């Protein structure tokens, strides 16, 4: 493969941030097709437009997802990227790896592909960037047989679920997000690999309302840890914070002098429900008013911890703007237990109810949040066989446009206009 001049990209080799251009050039030493990647990207920098064609359905036998087809629109200039398909490999929970595992994957990708990756794609997969159609099956064979690993999702199916770091290294996680993510990923392999949905569908698992995996913004079913009982307080540690012996916010603000820690200003006054106060040198919380926003816990991690009766809130319907505008997920189940012992059955039951309904009524390319908007939240709640509760809304409706069903209204809808006219002259 010819080396291309890349005067524009070369300018991205300077500066303190790691340069993907430098990295690609170094890789090109052993994988010459990386020159064509650089070359076509340079052309885009010059033309200020992409040089990739629209789609193309490629994949491995039996799977409808996991591979994204891609072809250059200037293949004659850059034959090394004529085909430039992406392979999505399902990532392990929390994206922990061993070097042995990754080295093997690198070898595989060097053998069958360009050697270029994304660690990771937006949804969470390991993205292997750039290979030819004829390499897909051999790669998949080696991935499954040699590594015991598998592809992730793409297209109108369940996308590879993702989770925050959870209990493995976070004191706030209210359930085992890694196990929940793993279990449900394994359970729904068919839904991940063989598109049967109206459009894509995502699960994300966050251990607490800080929501480090952006479940509420980016997943159709957002499972976010929470608790039922009281915030656990270590009053001795509270005193240490007040005394300035522990850094606020786990040291997150230590780069600037914000003055002495002020528990009133920094914690009590910022509590969105005003449910905290000091009394006799102790921090008091009216937990019945707490909405578990995490702020006080975030600020004083050595003094405060989530309660002990833990589980998750389930929210539904987040998506990016295309097509009807962005949506955050909506609170549907305020609290469910999240236990691996019963295979997360409360969650599984709910997920399958959502799918059953959405697969029936969802339109082509309609995310479940859009389907919810189209039918209305009251209808969604009804088909989910849930009791409507005020926690599902920020506020009650302000318009008076209520649908009443005939059976709810005394005497029904049928009336005789003649009878009416007998009492009311026209």
């Amino acid at each position, binding site marked *: 493969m010819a080396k291309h001049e890349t005067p524009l*990209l070369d300018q*991205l080799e300077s*500066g*303190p*941030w*790691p*340069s*993907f*251009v430098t990295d690609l050039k170094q890789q090109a030493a052993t994988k010459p097709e990386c020159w064509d990647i650089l070359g076509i990207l340079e052309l885009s*920098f*010059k033309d200020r*437009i*992409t040089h990739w*064609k629209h*789609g193309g359905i490629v994949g491995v*036998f039996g799977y409808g997802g996991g591979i994204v087809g891609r072809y250059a629109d200037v293949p004659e200039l850059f034959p090394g990227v004529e085909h*430039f398909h992406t392979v999505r490999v399902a990532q*392990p*929970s929390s994206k*922990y790896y*061993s*070097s042995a595992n*990754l080295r093997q994957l690198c070898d595989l*990708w*060097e053998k069958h592909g360009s*050697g270029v*990756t994304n*660690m990771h794609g*937006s*949804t*969470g997969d390991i993205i292997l960037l750039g290979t030819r159609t004829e390499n897909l*099956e051999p790669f998949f064979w*080696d991935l*499954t047989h040699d*590594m*015991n*690993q*598998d592809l992730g999702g793409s297209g109108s199916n369940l996308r590879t679920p993702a989770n925050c770091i959870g209990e*493995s290294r*976070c004191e706030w996680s209210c359930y085992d997000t890694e196990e929940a993510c*793993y279990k449900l990923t394994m359970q729904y*392999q068919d839904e991940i690999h063989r598109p049967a949905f109206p459009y894509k569908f995502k699960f994300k698992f966050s251990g607490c309302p800080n929501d480090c*995996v*952006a479940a509420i*913004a*980016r997943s159709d079913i957002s499972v976010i840890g929470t608790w039922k009982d009281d915030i656990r307080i270590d009053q001795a540690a509270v005193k240490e914070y007040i005394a300035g012996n522990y*850094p606020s*916010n*786990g040291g*997150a603000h230590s*780069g600037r002098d*914000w003055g002495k820690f002020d528990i009133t200003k920094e914690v009590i006054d910022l509590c969105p429900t005003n449910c905290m106060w000091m009394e006799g040198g102790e921090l008091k919380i009216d937990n019945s008013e707490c909405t578990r*926003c*995490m*702020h006080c816990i975030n600020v004083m*991690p050595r003094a405060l911890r989530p309660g002990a009766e833990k589980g998750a809130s389930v929210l539904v319907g987040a998506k*990016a703007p*295309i097509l*009807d505008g*962005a949506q955050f997920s909506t609170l549907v189940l305020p609290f469910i237990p999240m236990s691996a012992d019963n295979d997360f059955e409360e969650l599984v039951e709910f997920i399958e109810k959502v799918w059953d309904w959405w697969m029936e009524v969802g339109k082509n390319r309609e995310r479940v949040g859009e389907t919810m908007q189209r039918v209305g939240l009251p209808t969604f709640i009804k088909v989910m066989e849930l009791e409507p509760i005020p926690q599902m809304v920020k506020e009650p409706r302000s318009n008076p446009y209520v649908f009443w069903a005939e059976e709810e209204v005394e005497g029904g809808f049928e009336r005789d206009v003649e009878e009416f006219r007998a009492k009311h002259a026209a």
Partner: protein
Amino acid sequence: MGYNPDKPMDGRISDLGPPHYEQFFPPVIKANKGKWLWHEILQPGVLMHKSETGDEVYTVRCGTARLITVNFIREICDIADKHCDGFMRWTTRNNVEFMVDSKDKVQPLLDDLKSRGNKFPVGGTGAGVTNIVHTQGWVHCHTPATDASGVVKAVMDELFDYFTSMTLPAQVRIALACCLNMCGAVHASDIAILGIHRKPPMIDHKRITGVCELPLAIASCPLGAVKPAKAEVDGKEIKTVKVTVERCMFCGNCYTMCPAMPLADPEGDGIAILVGGKVSNAKSAPKFSKLVIPFLPNTTPRWPETVEAVKKILEAYAKDAKKYERVGEWAERIGWEKFFEKCDIPFTEKSIDDYRLAYNTWRTTTQFKYTSHIK
């Protein structure tokens, strides 16, 4: 062994799913899962978590490009092998983390990372700017309105000091999506860099019959701007579509459904800046990012207009916001009119919503602040 194209289904294995995570846990993680008590950021990029067993784990977080090669991954593996029993992990924001089980292992790790030039900047913790999540851009995508990796490199070069320090009022999450499809879901970011198109699709009448389902192309437009039409191709009348350009808001959904309707353009495409979104439920509920700069050009290779805009917003925020206040919380507290004034961003009608839920954004109160906008 290996794949046999003549018998593709022979010995086929499928639906294995991902490897079980536990095999990749560093020993200290495995021993303490579910037992962590508290954590502290010891210095930018270095965290310590304390377990109820008394164990501690020290994490060193490094920014990387999202677009990396196997060469580079092998170097990461080398580091993990040398310092971390061969384990490592990635964060959801494309940072790589190395973990060690005692404090005395931290400095040798940091020294090693530092010795590798600018490959492994340590930071991305606490009240700073962490790594930018982003999409593919011109390196792989067929619908982008801008590049991704290149813009991110340019922005992070400029904001580098905020990555390696913790001097801001709160964490600032920056994200980039190279078109409205937002594979990167930038709609809830403190600062969002969004590729946008500004020219309506061309209609490739020669190609449309072969590559499009016309009803799908027509249905794809949220505003009904794509309509059935007829055209002459090679002397024959064919069924095709036309676009009412006044109703086009350049979402590109028609192109997604129909390859014969390309809309990318060197002059039309560029970047919009949205600010004030957040995902976390901490203090305030999650917020969407709001469009404050409708267009900046694709000035390759370093997007100086975009870099400057992001930096200006970040620095106005850094100067004015209160401790713990996210960008959106700050803007709401001071009022958006003050936001535009303090950030020195011209306000345009493009920032005024006219989509489906627009009414909720109109100011239906007499409460406002006097700014330079009021002549």
